[in-house]
């Protein structure tokens, strides 16, 4: 097994863990964390492909990850403030109980 497939396999494991968390947990904050985890798995893929690519001096993978981290930070900030706003309204963060469109 080449080193690259080791990194790709780790990334696949992280993505699956994130997906299983996002699908099975009911706390909105934990679901958001699972989504962040899936983004991070993708970032690991970008860095691994950049490291083993024939033209690493182009820095494409690194640039992609910089912007991806920036977007993930913005997503976490907005997502968590939406969760706080929803909590103020429904008094819960359980996704099964937040089921009205017009509360």
């Amino acid at each position, binding site marked *: 097994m080449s080193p690259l*497939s080791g990194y790709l396999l780790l990334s696949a494991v992280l993505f*699956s863990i994130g997906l*299983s*968390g996002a699908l099975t947990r009911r706390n909105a904050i934990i679901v958001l964390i699972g989504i962040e985890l899936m983004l991070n798995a993708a970032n690991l893929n970008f860095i691994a492909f950049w490291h083993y690519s*024939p033209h690493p001096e182009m820095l494409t993978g690194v640039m992609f990850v910089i912007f991806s981290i920036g977007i993930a930070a913005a997503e976490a900030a907005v997502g968590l403030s939406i969760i706080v706003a929803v909590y103020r309204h429904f008094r819960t963060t359980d996704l099964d109980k937040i089921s009205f469109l017009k509360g």
Partner: protein
Amino acid sequence: MTISFLLLAAITIIGTAAAMSLKNAVHCVLALTLGLVGLAALYLQLGAQFIGLTQILVYVGAVAILAVFAIMMTRNRNQETASTESGSFRLSGTLTALLLFAVLAWAIFTGISPQALGGAQPEASVHEVGVALMQRFVLPLEIIGVLLTAALIGAGVLAIEEKEGNQ
């Protein structure tokens, strides 16, 4: 496939798996932090120093703290029980994730020929990253600046909205 890779991969997997399976939400965030620090160490090992340190700064310094604050602000009065998490629901979610992993692993083992890849040990120095950001990637940089400003204002507005309505 070095020992350091296996060790860091083990830390990352244990941390993230604990983050998705522990009961207490604060424990989940702390375990996630452990996993993401392991991931940052993997980035450092791959020669992406700037990315690894940014990962620590953003995820440990900002996202984990933010998540912890959100948990503290949304603590449920009635202790969260697993009543809504029915067994079959949980089973189907886990099965979907496992199926996805199987497909990805199959793709990885059949799709990549190791000979096609370069064998150099690249290093993304801060200087190179900075030059690339300011020349080739200057438009995305501006766009992400606007996006982050919008996110900052949006998060602030979302957080104060309801409070003003009550007054």
